[in-house]
């Protein structure tokens, strides 16, 4: 049987989804009551009287709840999921506003009705008095702190963290060259096509709660809901149905609705469902990316960075349930493949009266890559060097692995790169895009009156963060193999890649393998799907569990064949003596033999009953053994693996209209060993498209009062096919990770990380104007051109005010 690992096989998930037989959250619970929420129209206000009397008369209304109606722990602020010593002023919202609202979209009143139309009829008849307060909008207003988001949080500062390795200030002071840059990145958002949603059913007979939720962590939701409702974990099942995309936003939990819906379902004794609509997703889920950065860099005549000092200000929105994870990732991952002589980073995480900020694919890394790569380009411009050369001179070399940055990463563990070959990746990228021949291409285009630019950007991504994932593999007596892992899937093809791993490890046909993810009934211990961790964490756990099941199958078959386990193999689902197909026992039969029976349930099972023979001096199940062919294993690595990649883009900018066209987009990617290249490439395609959106189109247009003015797909410019590159050229490099049994590094987020950096570099190269703020639209570029005339054309190194465009 050929190996499945590494094969670009078609996905096992697709057939069902293509027939319209997927089961997404709103496809379930047709008998459920529906919810609608009255949400704050103000960015910052005190909540006064709430008058629901008109709404109570609406046909089909079942219940209306305000904060006053919530009992016990349901009335408490939502959990602060990731505490950190530097998060000194962590604040979270309430499931329903308790006296104050802090962003437009914050839930204030919950309406439960027979259907969504009726729930909305009632919601619009509810009168809420508000006393508006001054709104803090944008990172600059938060820093200024003329007004406070939370009265008891001075300076709007939720947390403040400094990390350093060496004496960066001294290194910069002593450096022959020093540059300063002011760099800004605007907000964007995950924006999956399916919004959030939750369905809950309280079984009045078994007194158990069952929840279906469109989440990236079913175990997280289960623990939070059980704690708040005072239920035993064993009495709560959380099932993740098909999820229509996540990209980070669905790792946050419990959302207000994820607590309120199960609570109401139990109280009312009827199933209740909430399906988020598109405007709610814009206003009431989460955004990311908004940060302002100040860089001071000192470097030598060769362009080597001697000292790097980065300060930045992170807009965390109204509350901070997910803690400091995003700015911690920026502060550590901005180092990329480089080794500055000394490094100091300091950030403040600031409250604003806008939607909360939590990780969106890339999670702080796009900002980090933007800062570091703009800095590399600025150094090259200052010294008149080739931009690739400056990067080469600052790379960590392969022989320096594992490389310790002397910092603490997002998982609380040392930032130590496990492996990687950055010079080789850059060489591949230069060859792929034709870096060294570009001047001829540019000159030829110039002859035609066209303006071209090229940019490149590098990144390193810590993937597969712990603490652990686990897996269960069981061989049924039919020979079918059931695999379960607790983390969830949102379209990444987990069923396929995990089945590929099991097929090889266990020696069974892939068609006999069924994988379940994100169902606490099937596997109760898990963390979740984020940080490009599934292949590394669950992939490793599944491999270990399959190996355990294999060892058991071989042991049982060896006893039956009176052979040594060392002489056994499993091929195509047959457990046999090596090289002797005649000796084979079907693995399903081995499963029958592994379970000593009193009662035969079918003919095959008769072989395992007590009058069928055996060694009468031994117990039917040995002391250290158990019935069945199963493996249950956990994988918990010492620290993250570090994937890496480099992108290059060639753009053409229109001399008149300032439109920005992508001519070529090239990716070199190293995620260690590849389980399924087709799926990895699909992940890169999607990441690049989101990166293009974030670099050229997407922004959250808040006005000064905190109203999000583009909260629809008409106005938030998510790329259609016309906006993405016509081809994405990909080359792989495989440096296996030494930290897990399969050599895997994560791949899910890679495509999006260097986009802002690479587009800024290419546009700057085309235009000769410093690009310090992203995204950049044609009108932004048009204005930059106007502002740069008639003064001489600057380079990235020139300090320049990068105002919050789009405000």
């Amino acid at each position: 049987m050929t190996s499945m690992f590494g094969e670009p096989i078609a996905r096992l998930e697709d057939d069902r989804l293509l027939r319209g037989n997927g089961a997404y959250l709103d496809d379930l619970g047709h008998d459920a009551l529906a919810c609608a929420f009255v949400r704050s129209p103000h960015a910052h206000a005190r909540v006064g009287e709430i008058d629901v009397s008109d709404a109570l008369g609406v046909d089909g209304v079942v219940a209306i709840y305000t904060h006053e109606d919530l009992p016990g722990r349901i009335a408490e602020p939502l959990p602060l999921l990731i505490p950190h010593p530097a998060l000194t002023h962590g604040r979270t919202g309430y499931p329903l506003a308790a006296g104050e609202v802090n962003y437009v979209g914050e839930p204030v009143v919950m309406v439960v009705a027979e259907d969504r139309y009726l729930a909305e009829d009632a919601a619009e008849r509810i009168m809420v008095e508000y006393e508006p307060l001054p709104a803090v909008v944008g990172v600059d207003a938060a820093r200024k702190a003329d007004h406070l988001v939370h009265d008891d949080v001075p300076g709007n500062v939720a947390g403040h963290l400094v990390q350093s390795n060496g004496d960066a200030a001294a290194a910069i002071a002593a450096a022959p060259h020093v540059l300063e840059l002011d760099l800004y990145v605007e907000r964007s958002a995950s924006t999956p096509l399916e919004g959030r949603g939750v369905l809950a059913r309280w079984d009045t007979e078994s007194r158990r709660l069952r929840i279906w939720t469109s989440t990236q962590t079913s175990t997280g939701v289960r623990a939070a809901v059980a704690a708040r409702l005072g239920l035993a974990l064993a009495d709560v099942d959380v099932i993740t149905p098909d999820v229509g995309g996540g990209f980070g936003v669905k790792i946050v939990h419990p959302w207000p609705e994820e607590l309120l819906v199960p609570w109401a379902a139990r109280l009312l004794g009827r199933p209740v469902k909430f399906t988020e609509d598109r405007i709610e997703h814009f206003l009431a889920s989460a955004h990311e990316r908004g940060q302002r950065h100040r860089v001071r860099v000192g470097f030598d005549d060769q362009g080597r960075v001697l000292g790097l000092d980065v300060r930045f200000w992170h807009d965390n929105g109204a509350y901070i349930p997910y803690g400091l994870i995003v700015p911690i990732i920026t502060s550590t991952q901005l180092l990329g493949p480089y080794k500055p002589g000394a490094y100091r980073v300091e950030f403040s995480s600031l409250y604003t009266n806008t939607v909360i900020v939590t990780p969106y694919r890339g999670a702080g890394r796009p900002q980090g890559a933007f800062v570091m790569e703009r800095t590399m380009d600025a150094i090259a411009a200052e010294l008149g060097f080739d931009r690739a050369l400056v990067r080469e001179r600052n790379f960590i070399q392969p022989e320096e692995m594992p490389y310790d940055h002397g910092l603490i990463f997002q998982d609380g563990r040392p930032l130590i790169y496990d492996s990687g070959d950055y010079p080789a990746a850059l060489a591949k990228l230069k060859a792929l895009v034709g870096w060294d021949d570009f001047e001829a291409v540019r000159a030829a285009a110039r002859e035609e009156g066209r303006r071209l630019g090229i940019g490149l950007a590098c990144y390193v991504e810590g993937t597969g963060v712990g603490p652990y994932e686990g897996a269960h593999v069981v061989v049924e007596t039919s020979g079918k193999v059931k695999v379960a892992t607790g983390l969830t899937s949102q379209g990444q093809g987990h069923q396929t890649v995990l089945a590929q791993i099991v097929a090889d490890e266990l020696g069974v046909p892939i068609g006999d393998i069924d994988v379940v993810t994100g169902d606490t009934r099937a596997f109760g211990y898990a963390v979740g799907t984020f940080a490009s961790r599934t292949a590394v964490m669950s992939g490793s756990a599944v491999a270990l569990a399959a190996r355990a099941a294999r060892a058991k199958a071989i042991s049982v078959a060896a006893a039956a064949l009176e052979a040594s386990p060392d002489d056994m193999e499993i091929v195509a689902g047959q457990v046999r003596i090596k090289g002797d197909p005649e000796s084979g026992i079907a693995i399903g039969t081995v499963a029958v033999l592994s379970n000593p029976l009193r009662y035969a349930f079918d003919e095959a099972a008769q072989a395992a009953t007590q009058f069928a023979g055996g060694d009468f001096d031994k117990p039917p199940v040995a002391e250290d053994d158990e019935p069945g062919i199963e493996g249950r294993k956990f994988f918990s690595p010492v620290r993250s693996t570090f994937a890496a990649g480099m992108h290059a883009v060639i753009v053409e900018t229109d001399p008149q209209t300032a439109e920005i066209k992508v001519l070529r987009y090239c990716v070199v990617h190293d995620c260690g060993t590849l389980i399924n290249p087709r799926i990895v490439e699909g992940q890169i395609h999607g990441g690049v498209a989101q990166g293009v959106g974030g670099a050229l189109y997407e922004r959250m247009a808040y006005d000064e009062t905190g109203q999000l003015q583009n909260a629809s797909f008409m106005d938030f410019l998510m790329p259609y096919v016309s906006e993405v590159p016509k081809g994405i050229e990909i080359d792989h490099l495989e440096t296996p990770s030494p930290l897990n049994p399969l050599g895997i590094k994560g791949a899910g987020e890679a495509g999006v990380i260097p986009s802002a950096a690479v587009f800024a570099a290419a546009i700057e190269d085309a235009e000769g104007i410093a690009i310090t703020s992203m995204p950049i639209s044609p009108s932004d570029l048009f204005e930059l051109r106007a502002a740069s005339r008639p003064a001489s054309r600057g380079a990235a190194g020139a300090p320049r005010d990068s105002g919050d465009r789009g405000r």
Partner: protein
Amino acid sequence: MSESELFDVRLTVNGVVRDVRVPARRLLSDCLRHDLRLTGTHVGCEHGVCGACTVLVDGVAVRSCLLLAVSADGAAVTTVEGLTGQDGTLSAVQQAFADCHGLQCGFCTPGFLTTITAALEENPRPTEEEAREIIGGNLCRCTGYQNIVRAVRRAAELTAERADREGAT
């Protein structure tokens, strides 16, 4: 007209006559999904921009979130569930998506499948540029569209191959 007044609507959905009683304001998308329980049609934005809810009404691709069920009275509606052959074979467009890895989370997919099915009726041999135009009004957040463009052209090939095979038998 009160919100609770119900109207009789007759639709022929995927070849089957279906009678429903719905309020005037019921969207066709909600009628298909919740009254007829054909949940393959998905709702991504409810303002006609994303295309996930696209169905064929009398053979024409329309956004079912922008159409009231009552205004579709008498129409023949094809949803993603109706694309599959009676013997259970995936349609050429469905098969092409599987062959080309044209879907990831699968939420937008039904809208692409219906849109492309209608377009290939009009233009059975699209160029790459035409393939991009065909899907130009549908949003996908997962795939970056690369493999969907491939799937459009693969579907055209498959359709031709299947027609040849039928012609030969």
